């Protein structure tokens, strides 16, 4: 795919290895990829916590017609734009990321605690997540 057009439209977008790293305008970029390049399958959204406690969200798009993959990454802190109006599968992905990382997706009204109970505190896949109940967890570093 010619990502040249991405340069023009999204300011500050850069290509690292095989992924496009966006500064902003996530929703617009996904809409652009969907409408102009028929990337019509959102395989999944992966969240990775970085060392500075920000979160990298990677949107893995796929085009069934052209058999092509496209990765779009954006770095966020506590909030991100929801894309459920473009891809309904994002309801599932965003809900999982909310439950595990605590990121609020603006515009997604389905967000709730998914795997964890409603009353659960903390977000388990965060690196600084500490479980107070030591019967449930072990810690190699502190020999708990």
């Amino acid at each position: 795919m010619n990502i040249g057009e991405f340069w023009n439209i999204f300011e500050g977008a850069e290509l690292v290895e095989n992924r496009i790293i966006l500064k902003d305008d996530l929703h617009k970029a996904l809409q652009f990829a969907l409408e102009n390049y028929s990337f019509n399958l959102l395989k999944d959204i992966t969240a990775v916590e970085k060392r500075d406690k920000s979160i990298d969200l990677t949107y893995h798009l796929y085009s069934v017609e052209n058999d092509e993959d496209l990765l779009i990454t954006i770095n966020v802190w506590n909030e991100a734009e929801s894309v459920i109006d473009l891809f309904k599968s994002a309801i599932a992905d965003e809900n999982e990321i909310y439950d595990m990382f605590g990121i609020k997706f603006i515009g997604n009204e389905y967000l709730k605690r998914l795997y964890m109970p409603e009353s659960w505190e903390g977000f388990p896949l965060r690196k600084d997540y500490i479980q107070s109940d030591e019967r449930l967890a072990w810690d190699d570093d502190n020999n708990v």
Partner: protein
Amino acid sequence: MTITTFKLNLGPQHPSTHGVLRLILELEGEKILSCEPDVGYLHRGMEKMAERMSYIQYLPLVDRIDYLAGFFYSELYCRIVEKALNIELSQRVKFIRVIMLELNRIASHLLWIGAFLMDLGAISPYFYAFREREMILRYFEKLTGQRMMYNYFVFGGIRRDIGYIEDIEEILKILPVKLNDYERIITENPIFISRTKGKGILTKYTALNYSITGVNLRASGISYDVRNTDYLYEGLKYKPVVLYSCDAWARYKARILEIRESVTLIKQVIEYLKSCSPTEQKPISPLNLKLPEGNYYGEIEAPRGMASCYVESVGEDRPYRLKWRTGSYYSVNLLRKLLVGNYLNDAIAIAGSLDIILPEVDK
């Protein structure tokens, strides 16, 4: 007369929710107005556990992500490690893995056929399907020592060389005959047809929009199969099964055809295995295994849709982050849309036809 709506809990103990799926349905009479899936009753924290364990410690756990198709997740996880360490598999090991995957796929589809028909109220096919599945599980037990959680694939190879090929040939001889029986009992059964034909229509657009993959997508007329580009299947003749009627019946028929397709795949592989010498590739030592810094991604065509694994390593003996993508999770999300407008008695047939398994959803 005023019409009132009410909420109904379907599951988590309902037998046809296969364990622990809870659907909160809003009903008007028997008509479904909205559906909200509630999952998480089986959450084990697979992704968090990966960050706490060394690569080899995590390997036996991977089978438990989908206990009906454990080989697929084992293969996916081994594939990531092999990719990171640049390990080439020998052709023999690759084809042994193909045999295991395809036998596992058949076993998984057979269980689905039995369970689906039981959901619809037909008891006998359940026993027929389990009888044939039992042959495959017996073979797995003979070879790996386990009926369900195999732990047979290891990094850079397999735990021991394949044996008892005559058992597989026996299975391949019996299976097509039994499938003809199933088709006579089920496919042409007027009650079955009336309960599945035209029910739960999943259009191409909806399927893609909800990220549905695997058999369910191919039963909606889209020929997307990860096996086409999979390096394990190189050199094997394979034709993806694509059906166009988009309903629950198509999803049933697609699985029957997939089993037949798997049988032809295994036959080709056995031809090859007979002609090559039984030299075995030695697996790599898993002690002090560290992946080089970077991120690794792999995908595979599991029985319930495309599964993928993403590993980010910072050069330690454990992943910095590991993420699973499982097909069933998206099928559960699809129920929000697919059940609306249908009647309660069809809800079971439609949800059942998607082949949802809960350990895969909850991870």
